[in-house]
């Protein structure tokens, strides 16, 4: 009876205890980094290599479309890639088509997260990079943007006419760009159908963790040059480029959380089966 009650108790454990264990487990790496190993997967390596293979000074269109919900996952990926783009003196134009809040991420990346790198590389707004902000319209605006940029965007994020930005003199339509980086969640399918497929635009995707299984088919089919997702993706990019950042520093917490989740599934099932197995003879005995 005592043994049965142990498994019954374990099976019906108060969820607040589980939450406390989870918080404790995730907090340990914050104070004591464990330095768990990070391996770089092939889709991420292909992504990094595709950008590395571009000649210095290439023209990049960077689409970012994620809400604050995806900020923690996707921004570290974007930061890692923008760092690489800056190191290769690329010309970068940012825009978002699906998420109004996404217009705030590029200024954050350049003015806050990578301000030192931007200053060191002598990157100038309007000359080396520009933010077009949010262009409403979803798929339709992507399609119109590809045909004629100024049809859907006449001013940049700060309200400056595009004709006053020297960088924008190089761009009339999407074919004027050499490469596209798509980040986020909401606009991935639209970007693939409206930009990559019709114009054969070389593209890589930085997505959220839950989008990976949907996007992997485009990578398998060769539609995109590379793919990476979530904080793990950021850590892999940083690992591949040997530039430690937010991704690598957060991986211990993510790995710890995932490991605990699997451990809970296993313990939960063991307690369930033991409780079930031990209750059977009792029931049979009662019947007799």
């Amino acid at each position, binding site marked *: 009876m005592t043994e049965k009650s142990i498994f019954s108790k374990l099976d019906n454990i108060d969820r607040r205890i589980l939450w406390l264990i*989870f918080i404790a487990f995730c907090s340990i790496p914050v104070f004591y980094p464990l330095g768990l190993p990070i391996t770089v997967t092939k889709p991420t390596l292909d992504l990094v290599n595709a950008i590395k293979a571009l000649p210095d000074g290439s023209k990049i269109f960077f689409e970012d479309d994620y809400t604050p919900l995806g900020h923690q996952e996707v921004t570290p990926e974007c930061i890692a890639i923008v760092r690489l783009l800056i190191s290769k003196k690329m010309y970068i134009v940012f825009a978002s088509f699906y998420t109004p809040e996404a217009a705030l991420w590029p200024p954050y990346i350049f003015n806050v997260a990578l301000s030192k790198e931007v200053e060191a590389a002598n990157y100038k707004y309007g000359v080396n990079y520009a933010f077009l902000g949010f262009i409403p319209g979803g798929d339709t605006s992507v399609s119109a943007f590809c045909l004629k940029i100024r049809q859907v965007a006449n001013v940049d994020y700060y309200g400056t006419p595009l004709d006053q930005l020297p960088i924008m003199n190089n761009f009339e339509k999407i074919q004027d760009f050499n490469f596209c980086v798509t980040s986020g969640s909401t606009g991935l399918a639209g970007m693939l159908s409206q930009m990559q497929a019709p114009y054969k635009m070389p593209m890589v995707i930085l997505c959220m963790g839950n989008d990976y299984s949907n996007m992997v088919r485009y990578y398998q089919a060769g539609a995109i040059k590379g793919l990476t997702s979530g904080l793990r993706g950021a*850590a892999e990019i940083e690992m591949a480029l040997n530039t430690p950042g937010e991704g690598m520093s957060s991986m211990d917490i993510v790995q710890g959380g995932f490991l605990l989740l699997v451990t809970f599934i296993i313990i939960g099932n063991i307690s369930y089966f033991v409780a079930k197995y031990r209750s059977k003879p009792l029931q049979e005995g009662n019947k007799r």
Partner: protein
Amino acid sequence: MSFIKRDLPVVISFILGIIVITQYFWIDPTLTITSTTIQGWAVVIWAFMMSIGVINIFIRETRSIISKKAGQWYYSIIIVVFLSCMILTGIIGTTNNPIYLYLFNNFNIPINQAVASLLAFFTISAAFRAFKARSLEVLVLLFSACVVLLGNVPIGSTISWTIPWTRDWILNVPNLAYSRGINAGAALGILGLGIRTLLGYQRSAYGMGAEE
């Protein structure tokens, strides 16, 4: 009147839709310019739709406050106050306004992330209490979930090389097969829906009931 309400939207949609579709398959400068202009209109219409959405929220929430709707009116006050703050600060000083950025960075981002973080807690308690292998199908699902979870983080490959290998197989073979099938079906469905809408059979797309 019935022509204006019933048939004109269908005629306009048909003509504009055909122009945009034709441009995709047939390269012609005039057609391209026309199509680009039409798609430019769509962007303006989209922007109007967002304004209508905001006005709609204002009306709905204000009504809730005035009528003191039980269990909702105090939430409505929060929505109206913050919506007004974001709109006013955004209009006055654009989205670079320090007050706007302060509200966005200190309210919008943390609230969104807090909501997302709650999922982790529910998943943890569900992992322990609900993910039980009660049948063979659930056992397969559980095994796949554990492998994909562990394979998603580098520690999986540290435990065993078979974990990332199995995870890749799950993602690249069964997952890919089912998702391609679903997508092919969805694409055909969208094509059918598009043709029905352009031909005016999909009346709900024009704000009319099916019987109209």
